[in-house]
């Protein structure tokens, strides 16, 4: 008994230490990004930095304005959400409520496999297969567009959104379902009016984490979107994302140069966005538990 207590106590302490370590790590990462990036304020004022649209770090008269990149990232990410979430949630509903056991056992691993595909492979597919296809379908010179990236990211977020939504749907108490069916509602009416609405907070968490996954994705957008630093006017325009910019340019900048600072500031901004999304997701989870 005493021995068990001791072990429990040690485990408790250990989890505390681990929890605190991760908080410290998060703060340190943020500080690192921010301090490395803060140098940019000597070259670009905050209003231009975040709200200007000229990203020309290598021109005669360099400008480091991030809005184009932020818009580019949001564009592909929201596109991915619009395409991916209905698919993922549809899958989750089908798997949790309708599919027979055997089909579930086939589909579930298939979805997990998507999560395991290296992103460079998906990027390669976007570059070689999907882009030419899009250029043909829409009659545009290059298929390397926001749409191309968004479609690939949609595929990539499906496992995250599907898994979390499915968990949320499965944890809806069976009693709700039985009550609705016993009143003469059909299976479909029950899903639509009782089960999905009860699982909405959980599905919301899935969508937010999918958003975080998509906005942080680098390789696929770098390969798929054409990387033109222009504010897009539609999904058939190429875009340049924050992640793609950092990945493409970080290798070539001199440490301590304004360009270097600017890339770190982009990293810092990305960090804040993902952190914010995770905070909201956590808040939703907490509210659900109450």
């Amino acid at each position, binding site marked *: 008994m005493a021995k068990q207590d001791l072990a429990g106590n040690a485990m408790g302490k250990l989890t505390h230490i681990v929890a605190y370590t991760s908080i410290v790590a998060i703060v340190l990462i943020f500080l690192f990004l921010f301090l490395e990036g803060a140098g940019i304020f000597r070259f670009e004022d905050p209003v231009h930095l975040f709200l200007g649209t000229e990203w020309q770090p290598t021109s005669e008269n360099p400008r480091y304005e991030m809005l184009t990149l932020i818009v580019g990232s949001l564009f592909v990410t929201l596109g991915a959400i619009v395409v991916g979430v209905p698919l993922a949630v549809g899958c989750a509903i089908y798997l949790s409520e309708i599919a027979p056991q055997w089909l579930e056992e086939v589909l579930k691993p298939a979805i997990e496999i998507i999560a395991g595909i290296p992103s460079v492979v998906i990027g390669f597919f976007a570059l070689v297969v999907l882009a030419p296809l899009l250029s043909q379908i829409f009659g545009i010179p290059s298929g390397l567009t926001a749409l191309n990236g968004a479609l690939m990211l949609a595929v990539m977020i499906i496992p995250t959104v599907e898994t979390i939504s499915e968990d949320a749907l499965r944890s809806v108490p069976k009693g709700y379902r039985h009550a609705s069916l*016993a009143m*003469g509602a*059909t299976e479909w*009416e029950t899903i639509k009016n*009782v089960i999905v609405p*009860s699982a909405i907070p959980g599905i919301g968490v899935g969508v937010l984490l999918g958003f975080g996954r998509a906005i942080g994705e680098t390789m696929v957008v770098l390969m798929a979107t054409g990387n033109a630093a222009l504010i897009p006017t539609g999904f058939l325009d190429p875009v340049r994302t924050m992640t793609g910019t950092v990945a493409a340019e970080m290798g070539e900048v001199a440490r301590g140069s304004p360009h270097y600072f600017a890339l770190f500031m982009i990293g810092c901004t990305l960090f804040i966005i993902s952190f914010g999304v995770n905070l909201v997701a956590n808040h939703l989870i907490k509210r659900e538990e109450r």
Partner: protein
Amino acid sequence: MAERPIKISSKGISLWYGEKQVLFDISIEIFVNRVTSLIGPSGCGKTSFLRCINRMNDVIPACRVSGQLMLDGLDVNSQNTDVVDLRKRVGMVFQTPNPFPKSIYENVAYGPWVHGENNRSKLDAIVRRSLDEAALWDEVKDDLSKSAMKLSGGQQQRLCIARALAVEPEVILMDEPCSALDPIATAKIEDLMHKLKEKYTVVIVTHNIQQAARVSNYTAYFYLGKLIEYGKTSEIFERPREKSTEMYLTGRFG
């Protein structure tokens, strides 16, 4: 025994979960506008039988039923029977209160709404009538938009009764409706049952023998998947014909 019209007539109902037979050849006639209680030790098949009446066993993939069960002229187990229609006629209240995480109003209006009623003033009237019949109206009338989850357990169970009444069923099945409630809430629901039978046919499963005696006109005693004895509650309690019934009622097993 047939002194009033029969509402439900079960002829040779047997039920299996996979290979395991749980009900054996149950034949019973349940009378209109009466409360009938099903009693017996845990695991004897009361819930399984209750779920035969509204075909809720369909929800369990491994479950198989044979035999005939008639609701008035409707052959419940027939392939052609519309389950949606059947369940509109046979409402159910579950062991643990299971209101939807919606407002009180939405809970009660759910059934009629799902069946196509979307006239607001008609729904208002249905909600009012149902809550009234479930003896809950006075307690909640000032705040129908409050979440049902914020009601007490006893209130939640009466809300579930109101929700079932809202579709105007003919029969109400209750599976241990008071098992999660305190004595005061239980008393309220028992009072309610006396009123409900004026309009509905009520079948209740209960583990509380005194409750069966208090609320029901007829009592059916199940043991190991068989219907051992069925009759007027007063007769079953005063002069049980079977040894097993007597032992159960006097608390010597179960």
